[in-house]
């Protein structure tokens, strides 16, 4: 595996392996996640990129047979360390899923959910944070008159941006995105990509994508996974123009995967 060192990484993973029962899903992945930048994870289906992503916010903990080995740090702190609460990790490392999954509640309540469960009760603060988050996700102008309507009435693209707003509301430091645009049409995808480019000004973003063009368009760093291994990682320009590994070159030029 070859990779480049990233100055002052937000997250670092060192020899991370994830097992489902006896089966190994990813083996010994070492990768740094840059702050205020987009890191794209690419590779064919089943290569372990989603598994890796879910280990960054301890979502694998919710599967009883999953086991994570190795070291994952956030600002230098081991997120799987003794006494570290997975709930706290997930507040700092937010996640947006492949299929938009708004709660069957109003637009407002969807965004306010994370704040309410964290104990925020003051209506003024909730209202301000909801507006701030919806604006941050580029959705405020579209929904400001229908905050009390069901989120399920929004279009697919709006629902996915609502999920991003919901994630922003808890003010995470890192945002993980698992193929966030795979269910969206080209116009909604373009909006979402524009949003991701804006968000990287303030957040470390890790995005799993099946679209090589998308990775090239929006990411600063790219990591190529194949068969549960990290084959190569580096600056996106370098990966796409001068890959060091032949498997990377074959994949990005479309010879397999």
């Amino acid at each position, binding site marked *: 595996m070859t990779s480049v060192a990233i100055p002052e990484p937000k997250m670092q993973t060192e020899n991370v392996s994830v097992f489902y029962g006896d089966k190994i899903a990813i083996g010994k992945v070492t990768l740094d996640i840059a702050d205020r930048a987009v890191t794209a994870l690419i590779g064919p289906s089943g290569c372990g990129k989603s598994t890796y992503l879910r280990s960054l*916010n301890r979502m694998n903990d919710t599967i*009883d047979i999953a086991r994570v080995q190795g070291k994952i740090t956030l600002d230098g702190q081991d997120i799987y360390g003794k006494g570290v609460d997975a709930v706290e990790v*997930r507040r700092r490392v937010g996640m947006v*899923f492949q299929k938009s999954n708004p709660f*069957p509640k109003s637009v407002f309540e969807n965004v306010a959910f994370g704040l309410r469960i*964290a104990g925020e009760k003051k209506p003024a603060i909730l209202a301000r944070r909801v507006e701030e988050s919806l604006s941050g996700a580029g959705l405020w102008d579209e929904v400001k008159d229908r905050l009390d309507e069901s989120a399920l009435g929004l279009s697919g693209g709006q629902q996915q941006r609502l999920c991003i707003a919901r994630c922003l509301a808890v003010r995470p430091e890192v945002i993980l995105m698992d193929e966030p645009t795979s269910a969206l049409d080209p116009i909604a995808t373009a909006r979402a990509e524009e949003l991701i480019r804006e968000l990287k000004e303030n957040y470390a973003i890790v995005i799993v994508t099946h679209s090589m063009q998308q990775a090239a368009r929006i990411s600063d760093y790219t990591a190529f996974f194949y068969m549960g291994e990290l084959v190569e990682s580096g600056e996106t320009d370098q990966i796409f123009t001068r890959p060091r590994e032949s498997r990377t070159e074959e994949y990005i030029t479309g010879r397999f995967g």
Partner: protein
Amino acid sequence: MKNTPKDYVLAGATGLAVLLIVGLLGVLLWEIVAGGAGVISGTFLTQSPSADMTSGGIFPAIYGTVVVTMLMTIAGVPVGIATAIWLSEYAPRHSRLTTIVRIAVNNLAGVPSIVFGLFGLGFFVLFVGGSIDDVVYGPGTPVWGKPSVLWASLTLAVLTLPVVIVTTEEALRTVPQDLRDASLALGATRFQTVFKVVVPNALGGILTGVILAVSRGAGEVAPILFCGAANFLPYLPTDLRDMFMHLGYHIFALATQSPNVDAARPMLFGTVLVLLVLTFSLNLVAVVVRSRARARLRA
């Protein structure tokens, strides 16, 4: 597509089956309404039966049924829902313990209700009640260790438990995993996820299951035969340790125990009608609750 002869045979046979069911139900309802509607009156619904059960009313039986059904619900439903939440949200998917609990629940659902009656007599009345008497009162006339409202309600609660567990677990499982993931990823604890996301979204299904279980429990006779239902009791139970009259049991008594079965027949039909109206209205509530919940999820 054109219908083949086979299609006509199948459509005819299935249609006939439907006709048979509807017809049977129609005859049943017609018999009951025709035989029972005439005796329904203010007196019938509010008075006690006469000593030979051929006149008077069935109020003690209505009262007993309502009280026992309510106590059964209070005692059984929370335990059933809690078990379902554990099975669906907390239990490890493939552990031996989970499998054993699941098998136990399914077997419990298949036990004949008369066995629950004997269980209630042996466990609640004789063992639990008897033990309380031994410890508190010593030898003598049983105070707790005899059939009563309390033991009958608890026996019915055990009977309805598997229905509540199975339907609640099914309702919880229809809540998409996506919503649990969304909640957890926002920093919710497992507990918050269960009570703010999973249960609210399954509430319609849970309530439907609960109401159907309660309506089934309200009509059961076998479990309370030995545990507290009385043949004839012109006063109302005022204590958990009193015996009570019950609509289902009263039907049995009118049909077999009355000194003059023929003279008691109108009373019998009237009682059946009241019991049916009670359970049908519970089922109707379940249908309304379910359709409302579905509409909410789709909105």
